[in-house]
């Protein structure tokens, strides 16, 4: 027995991505009116409820699924408006997929309209968010306890100022980029230990940008960078963060 894994819903296009898909399969298309679902036939024993639940406990398996899912969607979205599906959307058969497309045709139409001729770009911004070094030692008062408290207070103040500055930078950069993007979404900053950088990630955002406006977007990024922040650009991504049903 087999199941049908759903990668994305696309506006038209007769060519299926080469894959390989999440089960090593070659992706296929299920067309319904103007909408085309990019799907893959996967083994039931590996993708039924129990198997998927097991898979979600296995980091290696999650990685393989995520990369394959993502890879197929990237291919699918190369030329045509495409709405990526969240990982692990599985149907019994093609007919169930086609029925879903019929039922949600209007919603998908709106989503695909929104992402048409646009791509998603991830932007991470790092700044030196560490507190500056203590300016001066408090006057020795002959009271170790008091000196300690004053030092602690000064440390707290410096830490608060540093965080405040970092947040202000993130807000301002986000604002700047959002002005040249069609839509913006802020994700949680990733942990500093992962980047291996001295600096702290203060902004982890993603932007939906007109293909025609990408130059302007990059120019805005360069401006941000010129001001001293470290900027990391990822993408182009299929519009994962901006394909949401039920929004106009």
């Amino acid at each position, binding site marked *: 027995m087999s199941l049908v894994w759903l990668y994305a819903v696309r506006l038209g296009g007769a060519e299926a991505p080469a894959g390989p898909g999440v089960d090593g399969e070659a992706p296929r298309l299920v067309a319904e009116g103007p909408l085309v679902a990019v799907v893959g036939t996967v083994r039931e024993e590996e993708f039924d409820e129990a198997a*998927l639940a097991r898979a979600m406990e296995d980091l290696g398996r999650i990685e393989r699924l995520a990369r394959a899912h*993502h890879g197929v969607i990237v291919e699918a979205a190369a030329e045509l408006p495409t709405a990526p599906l969240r990982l692990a*959307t*599985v149907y*019994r058969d093609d007919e169930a997929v086609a029925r879903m497309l019929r039922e949600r045709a209007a919603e998908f139409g709106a989503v695909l309209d929104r992402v048409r001729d646009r791509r998603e*770009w991830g932007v991470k911004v790092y700044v030196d968010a560490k507190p500056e070094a203590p300016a001066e030692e408090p006057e020795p008062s002959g009271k170790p306890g008091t000196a300690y408290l004053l030092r602690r207070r000064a440390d*707290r103040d410096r830490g*608060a100022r540093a965080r405040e500055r970092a947040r202000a930078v993130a807000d301002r950069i986000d604002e700047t980029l959002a002005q040249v993007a069609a839509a913006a979404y802020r994700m949680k*900053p990733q942990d500093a230990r992962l980047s291996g950088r001295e*600096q702290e990630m203060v902004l982890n955002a993603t932007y939906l940008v007109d293909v025609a406006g990408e130059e302007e977007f990059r120019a805005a990024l360069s401006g941000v960078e010129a001001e001293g922040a470290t900027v990391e650009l990822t993408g182009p991504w299929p519009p994962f963060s901006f394909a949401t049903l039920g929004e106009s």
Partner: protein
Amino acid sequence: MTTGGLPVPGRSARPPEHRVESTNLADILERVLDKGIVIAGDIRVNLLDIELLTIKIRLLVASVDKAREMGIDWWEHDPTLSSGQRDLNEENRRLRQRIGDLEAARNRELGNGSGAGAAPEQEPEPEPTRTRTARAREEQGERE
């Protein structure tokens, strides 16, 4: 830039010639697990059913180091998962308590002149400083 962030040379804001596949796993997972169209398929073990939280907890329990290696770290920032941030109110309460204790201790110290025998009036302007600290504390509370 107003923050004194150090300019760091490197791969910044340059044209996107790299393949998306080379992007790190955390970036992909942020999108394929947390984003994208959500539809309940026929197989009801989509991530909505499992609840991302459950997955995260399982990942966390299973292998934190491995996960970090792979760049999966969202629980670090998830208030519902990170024990350090589980309850910000509680955390704030404890901090306030601690600051209160410290200030009380200091006041006691000022009051009894401590062991060194220095006169209390030599303390460097405790009042304005304390006001500033209290404000910083409040700002921090709002921010987090």
